[in-house]
């Protein structure tokens, strides 16, 4: 086992830097909890929302987080199915993103509810024609499936840790390892289960983001009622997912010194993937906006114009720059497709994709069909706090995960050329 | 760790039982009104709103004057105990005066949530429903109600509405 000491070591010890970060992030989370309690007592009036802009930051975040969730499961499943061997060191960190981020997606919907105490009404009195119910169904299936998909490959690694720890950790790992001994039969079953899950998870993942897009697409509101929203959102989701993995990879690589496992080839390959998605995303965006513009339908055009030249133009054009121009310029050139290059592109894509969600949710609502008074939506401190809290909590949980489980799959490193000589 | 969880669970379950399952606390009523003694008059003789409006209403003492020329025994007991009836300001008013002015602080024990719009008139006058079917049999009660005699829940409403062919439209009651 010693050859993977670089992976195991960070699990078993936490340095002062870790504690400092944990404390800082924890403080943000506590602040967000306070903001949420504030919102629960005073009602959604503490947000910047109003009639007709009923959805804002929370729903933007919801769509964004659900999009990022495609980082893991989908990508690792696809790569696993096509036997892309270079994927091995990155699957775990991607899958963790998926599982964690889904909670924040759901959490943002809860923030957005006027009566979160009645959230269970969705299950007690379901209305099957509502895309929101489809959302609830597909997200819970996805959450279950991706949790299993995260857990299955963890079992052998947990067994490794079980052998190396004592005390509560040992008891925890013993329970989680479910009696893994590494017998050939167990290996065969595990491999089979993983490949079944890998196939199963792909349609579920596609469905999740399709359904999220349908929350908008099924209404008849201008620039929401679009047939390509399903695939458009899926592409955007994979796009932002890959960007999220790359960002996470760079950070983990730097922090835990995993340069030997996460090598430039990974960044290069993922960079190419990101480039492909970048082009796809641009194609879909172009198609979507071109048809709207060509149609010149007045209500659609009002939203369109507000994005092109109106009050939402800064967001829209920033999105185009961040989602297409920056990543394309960096990634299309093999010389800039380095670790730093892909990181810059990824961060840019993540910001851009968040802006994309924002420019889908808010401008349509700001230009209702009915000639009613509208206003400029400026998110309040509560909304920003909760958003910050989500990101902080995500980082905190991710950090916590790295302290409990190997963030790079140990057993999958064996039998590949990925096992570095340097680690020995 | 496991123990702590278990203890927390025990605490949570007992709290939940206490909140949900226990019947509501008994309340003090200003006059120990004996329902059983008044079986000769109909419910609506005192709860007059039941036939005419949405709310049945709790009788004022003035209603007693229809039958009682002198203060009934329990009222006298209450009176001698002190100025429990507002409006009696220290001095002892005549029964007649008192009955006209006093508004006993009856506590409502049978209450529906605010979002349930129940109309007594519709059920009593139009549907000819017996009061006992929702309020239980009052003829045996020797006191004013100190707690809700019957637990009202929507399923009871719905099952009756189903068998009677009454409306099952949500907004008929919720609006």
């Amino acid at each position, binding site marked *: 086992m010693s050859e993977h000491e670089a992976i195991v070591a960070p699990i078993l010890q936490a340095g002062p830097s870790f504690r400092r970060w944990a404390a800082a992030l924890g403080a943000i989370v506590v602040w967000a909890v306070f903001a949420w309690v504030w919102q629960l007592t005073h009602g959604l009036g503490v947000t910047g929302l109003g009639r007709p802009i009923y959805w804002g930051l929370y729903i933007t975040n919801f769509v964004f987080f659900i999009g990022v969730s495609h980082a893991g499961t989908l990508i690792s499943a696809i790569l696993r199915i096509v036997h892309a061997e270079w994927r091995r060191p990155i699957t775990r960190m991607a899958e963790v993103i998926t599982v964690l981020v889904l909670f924040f997606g759901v959490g943002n919907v809860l923030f957005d509810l006027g009566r979160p105490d009645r959230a269970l009404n969705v299950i007690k009195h379901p209305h099957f024609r509502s895309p929101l119910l489809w959302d609830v169904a597909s997200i819970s299936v996805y959450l279950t499936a991706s949790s299993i998909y995260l857990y299955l490959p963890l079992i052998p690694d947990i067994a490794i840790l079980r052998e190396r720890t004592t005390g509560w950790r040992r008891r925890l790992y013993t329970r989680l390892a479910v009696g893994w001994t590494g017998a050939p039969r167990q290996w065969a079953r595990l491999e089979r289960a993983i490949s079944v899950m890998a196939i199963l998870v792909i349609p579920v993942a596609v469905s999740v983001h399709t359904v999220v897009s349908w929350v908008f697409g099924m209404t008849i509101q201008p620039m929401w009622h679009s047939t390509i929203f399903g695939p458009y959102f899926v592409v955007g989701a994979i796009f932002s997912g890959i960007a999220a993995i790359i960002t996470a990879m760079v950070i983990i690589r730097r922090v835990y010194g995993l340069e030997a496992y996460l090598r430039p080839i990974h960044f290069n390959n993922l960079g190419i993937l990101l480039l492909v998605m970048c082009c796809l995303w641009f194609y879909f965006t172009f198609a979507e906006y071109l048809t709207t513009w060509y149609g010149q339908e007045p209500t659609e055009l009002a939203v369109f114009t507000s994005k092109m030249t109106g009050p939402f133009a800064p967001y829209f054009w920033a999105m185009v720059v961040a989602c297409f121009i920056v990543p394309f310029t960096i990634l299309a050139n093999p010389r800039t497709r380095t670790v730093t290059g892909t990181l810059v592109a990824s961060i840019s894509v993540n910001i851009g994709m968040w802006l994309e969600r924002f420019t889908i949710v808010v401008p349509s609502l700001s230009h209702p069909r009915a000639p009613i008074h509208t206003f400029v939506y400026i998110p309040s401190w509560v909304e920003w706090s909760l958003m910050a809290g989500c990101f902080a909590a995500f980082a905190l949980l991710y950090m916590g995960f790295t302290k409990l489980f190997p963030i790079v799959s140990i057993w999958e490193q064996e039998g590949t050329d990925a096992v570095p000589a340097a680690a020995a | 760790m496991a123990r702590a969880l278990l*203890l927390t669970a025990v*605490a949570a379950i007992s709290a939940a039982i206490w909140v949900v399952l226990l019947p509501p*606390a008994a309340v003090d009523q200003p006059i120990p009104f004996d329902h059983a003694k008044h079986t000769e008059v109909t419910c609506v003789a005192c709860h007059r709103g039941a036939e005419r409006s949405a*709310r049945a*209403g709790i009788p004022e003492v003035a209603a007693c004057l229809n039958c009682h020329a002198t203060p009934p025994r329990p009222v006298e007991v209450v009176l001698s105990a002190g100025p429990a009836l507002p409006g009696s300001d220290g001095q002892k008013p005549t029964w007649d005066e008192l009955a006209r002015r006093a508004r006993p602080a009856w506590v409502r024990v049978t209450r529906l949530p605010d979002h349930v719009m129940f109309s007594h008139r519709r059920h009593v006058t139009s549907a000819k429903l017996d009061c006992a079917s929702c309020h239980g049999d009052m003829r045996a009660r020797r006191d004013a109600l100190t707690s809700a005699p019957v637990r009202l829940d929507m399923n009871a409403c719905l099952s009756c509405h189903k068998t009677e062919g009454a409306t099952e439209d949500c907004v008929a009651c919720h609006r």
Partner: protein
Amino acid sequence: MPEPVTRREFLSYSGAALTGVTLGQLGRQWLASTTPAVVHASGSEVWATSVCRECPASCGLRARMIGGVPVKLEGSPLCPIGRGRLCAKGQASLESYFDPDRLIGPARRVGERGAGRWEPIPWPKALDLVTAQIRESVSAGRPGLVALAVDEDGPPADAWSDAWRAIGARTFRTPIDTATRLRPRFEALTGVNGDPMFDLERASHVLSFGAPIVETWLSPVWAQRAFGRFRRGPSRQRGRLVQIDARRSATARKADEWLSVLPEHQALLAYGIASVLLREDRVQRGLLDEFGGNLREFQRDVIPHYTPDQVAAATGIPVVTILRLGRDLADSPRPVVVVAADANNSLIDAVFTLNALIGAFDRPGGVFVAPASIDRRGVEDEPLEALGDLKPRVVALADPSPFRTLSASPDLGRLLEGARFVVSLSPYLDETAAFADLLLPTHTPLESWHCAVPAPAVAAETRSIAMPAVKPRLDTADRLSLVASIARRIGAPEQATDEPISTERIARGEIDRLWRLRRGGPYSVVYETEWLEQLERGGWWAPAAESREDFTNRILQAGGWIDPYFQAGQIEQSLRERRGLRFALPVAIPAVPPAKIEIKPVDGAGRDGFGKGATLRLVTFTPAVVSLAGNPNQPVIYELLGQPDAAPWQPWAELHPETAARLGIESGHRIRITSRVATIEAMAVLVEGMLSDVVAVASVPSVPGAGRWARVIEGDARSLVALADPAGPCLVVVARA
């Protein structure tokens, strides 16, 4: 085999259970405390009759009472004015009854004037205080005491003045913005001493000179109803409306044609149309030939001096339009020309002249004389304008609302500041609270007796009479009883009657008088009212009740008395007696230079972020929902301000889009309007078709010392004109804030 439970385990689990139960109990208590308290005493629905006092129309209303508490106001279906309908203001008066900032009882000022510090005092002491002050002022000689009443009409209003005058006070009242204001000019032309009445409902073509028909005209609910029927009456042609108005008012929006003409130019346009009618001989000859009066001189004066060319040059309305307006008017079967009640005299003259020329007098869809109010003494009070620079020692105010209207010239603040002692008899915390020394809160309309003469509108004689719909909610008094008891304390001989005067007594007295008249009957449904009219037309009258008491009860239940008998032809009769019309000869067209829009730096540019602005003519107007600037304690009214264009809760200013473009102003921007005396801010609204040199500013009363809602309004348009030169047009500088 189960393991034995250790003592330690047992204790821990019991402890946990106990903690749970405690928490549960706390939770139960919390739940119980959050259960809303029963707001309504159980009770069944009762409808109480009352009278709306938000404006002089005095519509009958009914209040839906649940357990003795009013929860909603509706128009009374029996009332002939509204016929079950009620305007926004009328309904909102429920909110002023419940106003959380209402005065809870009599109070005396303890701090500095305007500091808003009060001390409650009992009624007798309060009356002593005011009596002492009045005694002192009476001994000091006139003008010692001034009393100001609201603009209402009826026996209680007369009794108010009588009581004050009995103790040597001068009484003032605003002339009511009803048809009564048109009376003097109407009389000058026709010789009829009566209120003119416009038969809007049956007209086929209405030419309106600034009449706010669908806003606050004469009797608003009646006007709205008449407008609806004028537009789409059963089995009749759609009526056509042409509105001459400086701004695009609600009526202008509803018009088929709107011409933007400043108020001071509207008379010119009217005479221009008259000259077209005369020159092309499109006048209705019938009446003119018989009662021509000084028509010939008028003709000689108007035709050469008011040629379409000259009028066009002065007003900016094209010649073809003036010609068309005249021809349209003459070609329609039942045209009528209407005017705002607060119009200037020359415009009123011109409007009645036009009506004479088109033969609208005594014709369906034309102008009639309202049934004379029997035994109406008329307003003996002096008009508010007569206050001038009077510096009375004691001032008693019934209601400060007359000072909220735009036309009132005296400055309330100055009047009150100068007085030694100010008594307010209003139920609310309002403008007077800043200056009053003594607050004697009176009943709100729902708590009061009523006996009002509604503003003339329907073709019938009416009284709106009602008793209180509710018991007084707070420690308030009847306004008339208060005055009467003050008068008695002073020792006025006329007031030393056995029975104290109160609104109730006056109202009951009026019902007795109506009973003795032996005509008319209680307010009733349309069918019964028409039956009564047919009877009276045939010379019959069936008593509505067996006895006087029965009659009283029926009147009070119905909310009023009506005599629907209506005799047309009064104008002709008067003309016959007087031998002809007396046209007012118009003065020559004054040279009215068009205002130059020059964009220039405002005085003191640079200070306070002032940029460049443009000099524009100011037109102020009262939005329809705050009609008569009534009661500032109705939040719903502020919410409805300026719909559908402007935003709620704030005043707005209307500009021509081109003018706005030159100033870099867009719809929704905040703009700053500076006159010689004041600066206010308002929201800009761009209006196509407006005069480009005019800015129209909504006047929303901002009442700093008043209730919680009135004090949040910013930018009172009245401040711009209050002290400005009243003669010329008020010029203001407009710039982006």
